[in-house]
Each structure stands twice: as C-alpha cells, then as structure tokens.
C-alpha cells in the first residue's frame, strides 16, 4: 500500500479536470480546422464536406448512447435477476 502523501492524485484535482476539458475541446476544434487545409476525400459523394468525420463521430456516438439508453429501458434488470 502506498503512502497517501506520495500518491498520484492528478485526476482528483478540479483544476486538472478543467485543463483536460480545455485540451479536449482545443484538440477537437484544431481537428476541424485541419479540414480546411486538408479537405476530406469523398468516397461516396456525401462524405466530402468539411467536418464530415467530426460530425459523424459526434452524431453517431450521441445516437448510440441515446439508443442504448432507450434499449436499456426495456432490457436492464437487477443484477440478481437470474439468481
């Protein structure tokens, strides 16, 4: 067991979480900006606009989470359901 004084607690500190949020948002914005310099290649016609992959990542993940929430409403049961 480690001494709590020497313990790494980077993620417990609110200011670090804030920095991580800024970094994540900064990276996301930067990646969209990159599209202006390297426009995405269209493979099928509908996928060539600026920000396509960013939008796809955002929308599909949001949809997957909401879908799982909806499905979970019907499928989730207590942990001891089969006991």
């Amino acid at each position, binding site marked *: 067991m*480690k001494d709590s004084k020497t313990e790494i607690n980077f993620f417990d500190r609110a200011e670090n979480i804030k920095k991580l949020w800024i970094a994540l948002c900064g990276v996301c914005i930067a990646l969209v900006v990159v599209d202006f310099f390297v426009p995405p290649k269209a493979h099928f016609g509908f996928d060539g606009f600026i920000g396509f992959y*960013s939008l796809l990542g955002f929308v*599909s993940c949001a949809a997957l989470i909401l879908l799982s929430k909806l499905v979970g409403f019907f499928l989730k049961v207590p942990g001891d359901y089969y006991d």
Partner: protein
Amino acid sequence: MTNIPPAAILILGAFLVPCFKSKFKNVFVVLLPLAAFFLISQLEIGASWHYHFFGYNLTLLRVDKISLVFGYIFTINAFAAFLYAFHLKDNTQHIAALFYVGSSLGVVFSGDLVSLYFFWEVMAVSSTFLILARRTQKAYNAGLRYILVHIFGGLCLLAGIVFYISQTGSVSFEAMAERNWGTGLILLGFLINAAAPPFSAWLSDAYPEATVTGGVILSAYTTKTAVYTLVRGYPGWEVLILVGCLMTIYGIIYALLENDMRRILAYSIINQVGFMVVGVGIGTMMSLNGSIAHAFCHIIYKALLWMSAGAVLAMVGKSKCTELGGLYKTMPWTMVFGVIGALSISSFPGTSGFTSKSLIIQGAIQQHLAWVWLVLEIASAGVFLHAGIKFPYFVFFAKDKGLRPGETNKSMLTAMGFLSFLCIFLGVYPQPLYQILPFEVTYQAYTVHHVVNQLQLLMFSGLVFFLFLPLLKRTETISIDTDWFYRRGGRLFYRISDRVLNGVNERAEQVFSLGLAGWLGRRSRDLPFRLAQVLLYPCWLARGLRGEELREKNLVLQQTLASGAAPVGIGAAVATAFLLLFFILSGLV
C-alpha cells in the same frame, strides 16, 4: 521431419504438465507455445499427414498462408497468456488451456471437415474447464450453459458436414460454392462459435465467469477459429456482411449498458469479430486480408485488455464498474497497458487496430458499399466509446472508491508489456504482418487524410462520452440478452409444460380412469343380459308375446344370467352365432 501438426506439441505437452513441480511447471507451459511457434515457422507449404477414416482420405496438416497466420498468432498469444499465468500452479487450468489452444491449432491446420470437427469439439470441452476452474456456483452454472450451446453448435456443424459429404462426396474443406442445407448448417455451426446474434449470449454469459487467466485465453481462440473457418469456407457470402454489421452495433449497445468490466470486454469481442465477419462477407483480397490482419491484431489487444481487467480482478476481487475507480493511483502500469489495449481496439493511429481494421473499411470503399462503410465507421466511433474510454475510465479513473490494492505481480506486468509492445510495433510498422497475409498488400494506412479523419472520428467520440457522462452513469444492473430464452425461458417453459401437461393428465384421469372406465365396468356387468335381450326380444315378439308375458320372460332371463343358470346349449348357440357373424363380416371385408 519438422512437418508435424503443431497441435501435437501442445496436446501431448498437456499430458506432461502434472509431472513438473513449482516453477518448472510454468517454465514448461511457457516453452510449449514457443516450440509450437518455431515449428510453425518451419512448416512447408502443402498437405501432409493423410489418413483413412471410413473410406475417406483425411488430412491432419494443411499448411498455407491462411493457416500459418492463425498458427503464428495463436502461439504468440498462448506464450503471452502462459507468461501472464506464470504464478499459477493449477494443473486443471494449464491442461485445459493447452488442450484448448492445441485443438484450435488443430482446427486451423486441418485439411478436411472431419478432422476439423474433431478438434472443434475438443475446443468446446477443454474451454469449458477454464470456466469451471473458477470453482464458484456462478461459474459452474455458466459453464453448463456454455457447453450446452456449444454442443448445439457442434451438432449443427456435424449435421451440415454429413449433408455436405453426402451431396458432394468430398470431405475437403475449401470455399463453399453451393448454397444448400449442408453448407447452411456448417455456416450456422461456425457462426455460433463466432458469437453472431442471436447465438452470441454464450460469450458474454460465460467468459466473465472464467478464471483470471481463463478469460485471457478464452478471449482469443473460439471466436477467431470461427473467423478462420469463415475466411476459408465462406468468402464473399453476402449474408455475412449483414451479420457482421449487426454484430458491430449489437456489441456496442450491450457494452454501453454493461456494468461488469469483463462483460464489457466480452461484448466488445462480438463487436470486433463483427468487423472481421463483414470483411469475409465482402470477400475481396483487400477485405479478406483485413479480416485476417484484424483477427491477428485483435487477439493481441483483446488479450491485453483481458489481462489488465484480470490483474484488477486478481488484486481487488471486484469486477463491477460501480465498485471500481481510481485504480491509476496504485496500479499505474496495469492502467498504462490497459489504455494501450483500449487505444488499439479503438484503431487509434499508432496502434495495431489502425493498421488492420482500415483494410476492411478500405475493402468496403473499393466495392462501393456505402451503407456498409457507414456502419463500420459508426461502429469504429462506438468502439472508442465503450472499450476505448468506458473500460479504462470507470476502472482506473472516475470516482476514487478508496481501493488501494498495489500493483500486480511481475509476470502479469511482463506479459502485458510484451503485448503492449506488439500493439504499438504493429501500429507503427505493420509490414511484418502485411507480409504474412495471404494476398499482397498495396495499402498504405498512414496517409494524412486517413490519420486526420480517424482522429476526428475518435476525438469527437471522446467528446461525446464526457459530454454525455451523466447518461452513462453505471447502475447495478445486467441486461437481458438471448440467453434469457434458456435461463428464464427454460424455467417458464417448464412451468407452462407443468401446468398444461399435468392439467391434461388430470382431466384424462377424471374422464377416462374414473369416468369412462367406471361406466364401462358398470355396463359390462350386465352386458350378457343386454346382449341376450337384444337377440331374444325379436324372437319373443315374433312368437306374439306382449305386455305382462314379455316382462316375465325378461325377468326370468335376467335371473338366469345373473345366477349363471343358463343352459349350456344357449352358450354354445351364442358362440356359434358369433362365429357365423364373424365369417359373414370377414367375407364382406
């Protein structure tokens, strides 16, 4: 002389495990897959070890580029898994694992369907012991369900093989051209092992109940031998595109709902195998290369993920996300290796998933399969969501639950370090893998477009995870899957059968035993009298008897028959009458 089936080394080695004591046992089991790997690298291309079985010419060793790739990765992964289990002294687990890995090598090097079926069943039985070895009631129950599903899958495969042989007269295992009962049933048998819905629940039900090392070993072989058989037997079967797409999304949705860390990883196996199945369904050289390369890399990073989860389970004794969190503080190395596995499964540039999965997606692009491509991209983003971030976040970060277990042992860390190295090595320099693929690879994963697009997809996926974190809060729940039908549905079926069949039984007793039989008994008692009455009445009427005389005759007849005082001649006359009747009737018929 080196051309011997690699399965033999591990299976024969398994018999010797009890002969070794303490560390020698572990050294021995680590050396066995290394020896098998060396043997595979020396194998000559071609078929050998032919033998006759019921008039068929079977082949135990068929060496070509497809079997070699799977042979290499199966032995590399076994080496890492036994290194991970270097502290383990349990003979049951070592022997079961050696039989399991050995028979999976048997499957990939079998040249015919009969030998394949034999090894297929050995795999099912030996892998069950890796679940039972946990020695808990839950594991026993899960193991029983696991083997029952695999017996069903094995029977489908066997029935398919019998059909196939009777139709074609051949036992050789090549790409299936005909679409009929035989090839359909064989495909069903393979898909059950590939954990394709609705036959997928066995995986998420059983693997999380396995032992710490059992989970690591199980994660690699059953589903990937199934991928091998699909690549070999069913390239270009369009139905697999649909099945694979379904698997990718199904795996993500269930993994997002799940609370148990090893069950999250179990569902993500289904998701990843879905990508490989799509590649087989597309069936081009690019996509088949992709399926094989992805199976290769997937085995490595998935074993790594199961190792990090296993290390946590071994140290903390807990597996639910609701009970875990903040472990980066005392298990930093396990966390780092887990994160490398998580990034690899998410196809993060610089990791092996990026250089292998891209081949499948490129295959879809080349065939202009827009909707397939879109599903694969959506699923790629979803992988980062459930396995890339959710698993490490809830286990190693999130809320500190006050757990201070300390780092896991050195052998586990070494194995994880080895696999992490492979994940990054194949991510940065995939050429050694590309060179052993069955078809020539001209694809370049690292283009500016591809890297930027992949990063955009993943980083926005990550952004969504943290924005939607309140919706992803873990709950003490499980999700109903298709195993409901044989877990709850079985009990329900029993109860319904009990009510219906026993109800019918009760009614039948009332109607037939008590009612009809009693009635017949009562009727039978005065049957001779009634028969005699029917016969004699017309005679009496013909003689002109009426009213009181008729009633008296009737009474005398009843008393005579009741007391058995009827003259012998009457009995003889009745018997003769019956005989006559019989002859008349038989003459008519």
